């Protein structure tokens, strides 16, 4: 029982190591919490499709510029 209590205490200390974010307004806090969920666990589920959407949009808007950007990035290492 004592071991469980210690483990629980350790876990709670770990979780409450930082105070929750306060953005100054309740609606902002709600938006932050809703968005934050996607980035706390498996963010790539959101990031990868979003990146492809952005890349395709850039291609449709700027066309050849995308190819130039990528060529530039490929020399960037």
């Amino acid at each position, binding site marked *: 029982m004592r071991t469980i209590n210690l483990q629980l205490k350790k876990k709670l200390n770990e979780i409450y190591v930082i105070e929750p974010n306060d953005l100054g307004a309740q609606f902002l806090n709600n938006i932050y919490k809703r968005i934050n969920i996607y980035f*706390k666990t*498996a963010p790539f589920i959101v*990031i990868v499709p979003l990146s492809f959407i952005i890349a395709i949009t850039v291609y449709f808007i700027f066309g050849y510029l*995308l190819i130039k950007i990528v060529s530039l990035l490929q020399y960037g*290492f």
Partner: protein
Amino acid sequence: MDFRITINRKKLAQIIANFLTALLTVVRNYFLLIVFPYKTVRKISADNDQYQLIIIFGMIFLYFKFIYYLRGKPYPATLLFLIFVINFLITVSLFYWLSKPANKIRFSSFIFTFSYSLLPTLTWFVASSLLYVLLPPPRTISILGRGFSIFFLAFSLSLLAWKLILVYLSLRFSSRLGIYRILYMMFLYMLWFIPCTIFLYHFKLFRVPFI
């Protein structure tokens, strides 16, 4: 004499065991940072196994050695590595100094979390250099060229987003400050980072800053 050899062997075995444990931890943390970035950065911020830092910085040094031959040998790998380490230490010290008024913060926490936030950077640089060998630029306007360009930009954006998440979480758990203060610190950091990037680009040290 025999006694001394036994002691050294024991020490050596201990060092090897610690190194292998740290290597496994780094590999495990790499995958955990992909799936559970929040929990993993929280755990890393409380870590103090220096072998992990040696492994991460060792991998970066190996990368610089590897690109030394790809880039046509403009600067020695050791020089680039030293510049990177100085840049890294300035970055970490700046954030530590900016968040020092906050209670109960440790410099080592900044070092550990920021070292792990270098993993997306290293992934991007390794992938870019490998793709440079496999599919050398410039890209063409053919269908394959366009397709690859879209893929490469999406890949770069994904890693940039991962990097930003890790940097934000590193600052959040190391400084224990709120989002506004973190954003303010990032803005102040940009005042150093942008001129530094231009300087590094001008002298052809880094085309894309390794940080």
